[in-house]
């Protein structure tokens, strides 16, 4: 629970930290747009290289960003495999005949059983297990002395592979950029930036200040609520709850024992916060001054320029490419 990186600010010092939050937000949107416009896989690889190069320059540790990607690992792999297996357009790249015979089927079952048994003892990732499983099925299907009862082909097509890589890279870029934004920007700055960026919406009577306030408070309270959740987990553990174990029915009660106090604490917190804000004469919708004014620096123009250039470049490349 402590490793949730998305949405956490980590103090540091680099040009990314000093950048105007408005610029960061606009640049983020522009770069997102660029990744959606890019239609060539090599350009996409280049874009990823660009984003990764940004990390050491901005003094953001690769490890942190990777931790941000970790919770999405399953999603990334799932979309990747899904695309590869089910997209049958373009040139046929690889066709692996798979023959299911008695030997490899039995072996697969035995392996699955031993995995179920062994995973309690040794740390196995599900992925390495799948890899071994695939190799075994493939390896034994070459042995023709056993009579196959079913023959099928594992086929990978060109478009499938490129699409899969494409989506993978796009997701990685988007998550990395968002993580970089939240790591390098204080929630209050982010909030202020958001408010300013959304200002044009005021013309259509959207209360942008309130939206920014709500988002800002939500971001601010993520770590606080995580800490509270941790405390409640400890308190319930003292009452004999074992969060790692239990049947499904126990699990439900365990989760309720965590959620109910969390709700109550959240409501209490929001009540207290509302009182504190009112005590300081907060009136929704009234114009407010800020302690820290945003100032536009040359680096801001530079970053904004680069972002706009990226969009233009990706559009040009797309037109040229098609």
């Amino acid at each position, binding site marked *: 629970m402590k490793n949730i990186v998305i949405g956490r600010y980590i103090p540091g010092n680099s040009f990314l930290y000093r950048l105007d939050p408005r610029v960061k937000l606009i640049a983020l949107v522009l770069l997102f747009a660029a990744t959606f416009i890019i239609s060539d896989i090599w350009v996409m690889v280049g874009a990823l290289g660009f984003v990764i190069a940004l990390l050491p320059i901005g003094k953001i540790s690769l490890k942190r960003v990777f931790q941000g990607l970790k919770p999405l690992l399953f999603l990334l792999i799932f979309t990747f495999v899904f695309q590869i297996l089910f997209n049958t357009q373009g040139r046929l790249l690889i066709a692996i005949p798979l023959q299911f015979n008695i030997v490899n089927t039995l072996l697969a079952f035995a392996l699955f059983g031993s995995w179920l048994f062994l995973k309690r003892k040794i740390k196995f990732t599900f992925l390495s297990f799948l890899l071994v499983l695939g190799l075994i099925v493939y390896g034994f299907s070459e042995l023709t002395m056993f009579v196959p009862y079913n023959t099928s082909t594992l086929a990978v097509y060109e478009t499938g592979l490129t699409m899969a890589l494409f989506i993978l890279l796009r997701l990685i870029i988007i998550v990395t950029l968002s993580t970089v934004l939240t790591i390098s920007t204080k929630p209050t700055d982010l909030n202020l930036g958001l408010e300013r960026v959304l200002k044009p919406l005021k013309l259509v009577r959207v209360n942008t200040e309130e939206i920014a306030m709500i988002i800002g408070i939500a971001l601010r309270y993520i770590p606080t609520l995580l800490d509270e959740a941790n405390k409640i987990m400890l308190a319930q553990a*003292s009452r*004999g709850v074992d969060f790692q174990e239990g049947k499904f029915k126990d699990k439900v009660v365990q989760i309720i*024992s965590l959620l109910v*106090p969390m709700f*109550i604490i959240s409501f209490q917190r929001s009540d207290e916060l509302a009182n504190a804000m009112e005590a300081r004469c907060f009136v929704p919708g009234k114009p407010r001054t800020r302690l820290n004014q945003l100032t536009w620096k040359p680096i801001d123009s530079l970053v904004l320029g680069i972002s706009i250039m990226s969009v233009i470049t990706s559009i040009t490349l797309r037109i040229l490419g098609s």
Partner: protein
Amino acid sequence: MAIRLDAVSHRYTSMDGSFFQAITDIHLELGQQKEMIALVGETGSGKSTLVQHFNALLTPSSGTVEVMGIKINQETVKAKSFKKTPIRQHVGLVFQFPEYQLFEETVLKDVSFGPKNLGLKENEAILKAKEALFQVGLNETYFERSPFQLSGGEKKRVSIAGILAMEPDILILDEPTSGLDPAGQKALMDLFLSIHQKTKTTMVFITHDMNVVYRYAKRILVMHQSKLVYDGTPQELYQMPELRTWNLDLPDSLKLQTFIAQTLQLKESLLESSVDDLITLIKEEGRL
């Protein structure tokens, strides 16, 4: 052997990957004598961290905690066969704001949550819950009420009953009286004392109030800057010159005694003298 700590240190890992050493090299034994033990020390000295090792909520970064013969250290907890629930049955820990742990619809259900987690049948758990509620001074009229509609002090009692219902051999209380008015504080501490006398459980309570220590504790542990700096009787502690550096105060009655000794310019210490001695002394001196 109840609880034994052998060279226990704990460090927290914070978000930016840095470490914070919360307790350092603690050696401690408790629970053989069935006593009331006070744990004091300034804010941030590591008291809460220390007691969370007593029931395996935290695993020491180095060193070993032994609870009722079960060894807890970095190696042992990795084993699949390692079960924490029995430890939590032996050692009950009541957190600083225990009212946050309430979640059931009725008081009785909430208190029976602990025993049920220990594997007791519904009706047995309810029985234990009722006993525990009577122990903390809440009668049948409370059983079917919602825990969220009680006063602060009542909530506290309910959550304490939630731990008592598990019938721990050792009861740990993290600042049990915080947030209560003086009368409520005294009532709660008297309650612990009577439970202690009846059930002969070892109790460890964290407090900032030296008057509470003076009145209730036979043994006192002092934490200072992540280290256990004193383990002994309160009487000896009161005469130690380090008291100031540990940011501890004398209890009010002892302050009064020192004041009397100073104004009367007495040489010998009054700490050992009884109330009657003091009264005669004041009367005599008053006549002079």
